[in-house]
Every structure is written in C-alpha cells, then in structure tokens.
C-alpha cells in the first residue's frame, strides 16, 4: 500500500503570500494515494526537515512530495532528509510553487489552483517512482588550472598547498597574466609581482 506524504512550504511569505498553502494541503489530502499532508513556514529548515522525517516514521509514508522552491535549489536537501528517515531518496518528487508559481503570478486563486495541479502531477508521478541506487566512480586527485594569471596562480597554489598535484597551463611564455603588467595595486599600493 503506497502512502504519499505531501509537504507544502510557505517559504515565509514568498509562497504563502500568493498561494493559499493551507487550502493546497487540504486539496492534496484528497489526492489518490495521499495519506498525509501539511504546511510549514520553512520546509528546508532544520525543524522543517525534522517534520518530514517524523511524518515518514509516524505515518508510515512510502513516498514524499515537497512543494516549495525550485528543485534546482533544494532537491538534494530534501533527498538527504528523506534518506535520513530510511526512505530511498528517489521515492521523492519536488514541486516548484515558488519560482514557477507564487513569484510569477499575482492572482491568488489562479496561483493556488496551479499549485494544486502541480502537486497532483507530482503525486501521480511519485506513485510510479522506483527506488534508485547511486553507483560510484573513482576520482583522479589531480587538478588542471587553465590560465596562469593571478586567479590561476592563486588557485594552483591553494590546491597544491593542500597536497594535491596541479597542472597549470598558460598560453603565454610566462605565467603572471595581466597582473605582472601592473605597477602598484590598490588599495594598498604594494607591488604586484
């Protein structure tokens, strides 16, 4: 039996200012497979994540939908939170009701309806999600720095000082870049070499 939990974020007033999140959570509760839904002021915060973990344990949730900001922002945050509750992090979908809803629409009713639709889409999708496992790839602990000016030299030195090998490639016959052409540099007026 699949039990989906829907968590609707207010994002302070960023979302709740335009979208009636309470109504959205009520509507979400009626969607197929949804066993639990709630709102919270900041779902990405510590207490917000704790709320999700607690609900997974207490409500026996099998899938999670978080409606908040763009997944490009916090998808990994919530995946980790869910994994912390022992659920596979890919039994999760995120709904973007901030960047693509509350921030771009001003009509409260329409924005709220859109949020409900977007959540329904995610609920339907998450019911088809399967647990996924990440594989691993090796890491070559050696860096390439392209450009031997102040930026490249500083990066190369910092990485090399940490004990890793660095390959520095410079187009000109000397490193130093534009900086070595300069006389004194502000605000200290010390030499630039």
């Amino acid at each position, binding site marked *: 039996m699949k039990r989906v939990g829907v968590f609707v974020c207010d994002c302070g007033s960023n979302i709740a200012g335009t979208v009636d999140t309470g109504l959205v959570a009520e509507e979400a509760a009626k969607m197929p497979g949804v066993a639990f839904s709630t709102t919270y002021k900041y779902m990405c915060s510590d207490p917000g994540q704790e709320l999700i973990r607690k609900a997974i344990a207490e409500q026996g949730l099998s899938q999670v939908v978080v409606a908040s900001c*763009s*997944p*490009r922002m916090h998808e990994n945050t919530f995946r980790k939170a869910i994994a912390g509750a022992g659920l596979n992090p890919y039994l999760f979908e995120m709904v*973007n009701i*901030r*960047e*693509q*809803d509350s*921030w*771009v*629409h*001003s*009509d409260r009713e*329409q*924005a709220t*309806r*859109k949020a409900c*639709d*977007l959540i329904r*889409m995610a609920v339907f999708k998450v019911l088809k999600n399967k647990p996924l496992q990440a594989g691993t790839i090796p890491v070559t602990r050696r860096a390439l720095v392209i450009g031997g000016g102040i930026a490249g030299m500083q990066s190369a030195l910092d990485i090399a000082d940490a004990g890793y090998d660095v390959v520095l490639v410079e187009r000109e016959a000397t490193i130093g870049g534009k900086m070595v052409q300069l006389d004194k540099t502000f605000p200290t007026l010390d030499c630039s070499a």
Partner: protein
Amino acid sequence: MPVDANWRPKIVAFACNWCSYAGADLAGLNRLQYPADVRLIRVPCSGRIDPQFVLRAFHQGADAVLVSG
C-alpha cells in the same frame, strides 16, 4: 461561437531542466509575470520528449502543448 469568459486553457509545457526550466526559474527570480495557465513538466532534456507524450496530452484534453529545450 461565444467563449466563456471564465474559460482557462490547459497548457502542457515540457521544459528541459538545463535551459527552459532554468529559464522559468530565472523568470521567477526576476518576478516576471505571465498567465497562470501553463503547467511545466520537467524533463532532463528536450530529447527525452517522446512524440507519444504530446499526442497523449492532446488526447487527454490539453489545449496546447509547448516543447521547449
């Protein structure tokens, strides 16, 4: 044919995660306003979009489909 003033179209938009979806996010960051009738479906690439999805959307009653990537 009279058009119902309250009629809202159902617009399905398939948006590539790396460009169009990011662009929609950017529109949000800049608070650019647009009609609320479009529903984005995030795909990892416009190459992921199967023509069947478009047909399915029309078959299920979508008024318009946007493929962007």
